């Protein structure tokens, strides 16, 4: 069925996997994607991509799916269908509180006390790759992007006001001083948690 569909939609140069690949990308990107970016990544003509996107969007509607593919200003994104809004709202409202994992708490601690800080630096302090955890913290609204490092160009992160609220603080300067919780002999610490000497 998918092969027929793709053949009927794209032009001769569109491979049968285009439909599938577009769906996969749209399902996980965390912001709208333009036809141009999609076409470049897939190394295909923009109009083949656009036609397939429009076809997919129509198909989701025809099949009465709970999700919808729509083009907004910056590009295409998967949305929930308006008819399902009540159910989604109910689900979100009734949802249980989310407990953070130890890894998430530790990552958040590094961001809180080192902000603004890049993902690479957070990973260096914790000794493990923190990219996935950082992404989760952004989704949870606990940390957010804070521009780029002027030297390295790396994306920087800081904590949000929601983070302060959840911790019961009014401002960042109410965060307890870290010194009493550090061993006496590590005053020469640099940002990576290593001794500078």
């Amino acid at each position, binding site marked *: 069925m998918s092969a027929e569909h793709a053949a009927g939609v794209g032009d001769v140069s569109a491979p049968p996997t285009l439909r599938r690949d577009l769906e996969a990308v749209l399902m996980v990107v*965390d*912001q709208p994607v333009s036809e141009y970016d999609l076409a470049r990544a897939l190394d295909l003509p923009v109009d083949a991509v656009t036609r397939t996107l429009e076809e997919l969007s129509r198909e989701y509607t025809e099949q009465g799916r709970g999700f919808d593919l729509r083009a907004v200003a910056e590009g295409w994104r998967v949305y929930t269908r308006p008819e399902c809004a009540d159910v989604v709202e109910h689900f979100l409202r009734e949802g249980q509180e989310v407990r*953070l994992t130890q890894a998430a708490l530790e990552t958040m601690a590094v961001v809180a006390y080192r902000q603004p800080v890049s993902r690479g630096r957070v990973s260096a302090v914790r000794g493990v790759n923190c990219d996935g955890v950082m992404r989760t913290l*952004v989704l949870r609204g606990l940390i957010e992007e804070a521009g780029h490092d002027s030297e390295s160009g790396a994306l920087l992160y800081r904590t949000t006001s929601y983070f302060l609220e959840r911790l019961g603080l009014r401002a960042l300067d109410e965060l307890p001083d*870290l010194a009493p919780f550090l061993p006496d002999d590590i005053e020469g610490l640099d940002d990576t948690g290593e001794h500078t000497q």
Partner: protein
Amino acid sequence: MAADQEAHPPPEETGEGDPHAFQVHLDNFEGPFDLLLALISKHKLDITEVALSRVTDEFIAHIRDYGEEWDLDQASNFLLVAATLLDLKAARLLPRGDVEDEADLALLEARDLLFARLLQYRAYKEVAAVMSERMAAQGRRYARAVPLEERFASLRPEVFLRLGPREFAALAGRVFTPKEPPSVPVTHIHQTRTSVKEQGELVVAALREHGTLTFTELTEGCTGTFEVVARFLALLELYRASNVGFDQPEPLGALSVTWTGGEGEVRVETDYDDAVDEEEGR
């Protein structure tokens, strides 16, 4: 991902030894069981007695190659396995027909235990490979985790921090505290290095002076298992050359050793000596 795999090649699979690959990854062995398994698979052998006797020398050679890079935990684990392997090898040096006393039975038990642990380790190693494949396959799937649409943003489920500000700071303190691995000085280990030849000379001198001594007396001055093993091996060599006689009246009783060699020069030569001599000379 493929490039990653090349950069960190897993140790060989059992049964598919590639001698060249083995040479390259010599330093990647994690623990004595890992090394033993690799040595066995290098020779395409099953885990049998034959396998153990053939890999013993290479095992010892590998330990030597590590030089001073060991940490205490690793070194002691390797030494434990090495001692067992040496015991097994020593048992084969005994004259035939003399395999039924308690010491031999103990060696057989040690061998069985080593086999059992090796087999168990191999099982986990193989199942780890299955897990690795599963994780690699699952890693190719990306979960949908995207920000909530604006209309739902305010309905986001609350995050439960379970920490107050002070607890949070304490957690941060732990994260920022450098994780220096606990270190134990290992220099003293190297002082116990010795050779069968060196210990053999001490044994010969002591037996010439006293005529008969128990094994306990012969090993009284030893500073570690290493020296005890070396003296034991030296005695086996002396026995093979008819320079000493053993008497053990009852199982597990005291073993007395009597000098039966002449006055001439006695050299204790074993196949371990070359190896150890090289190291001493380094």
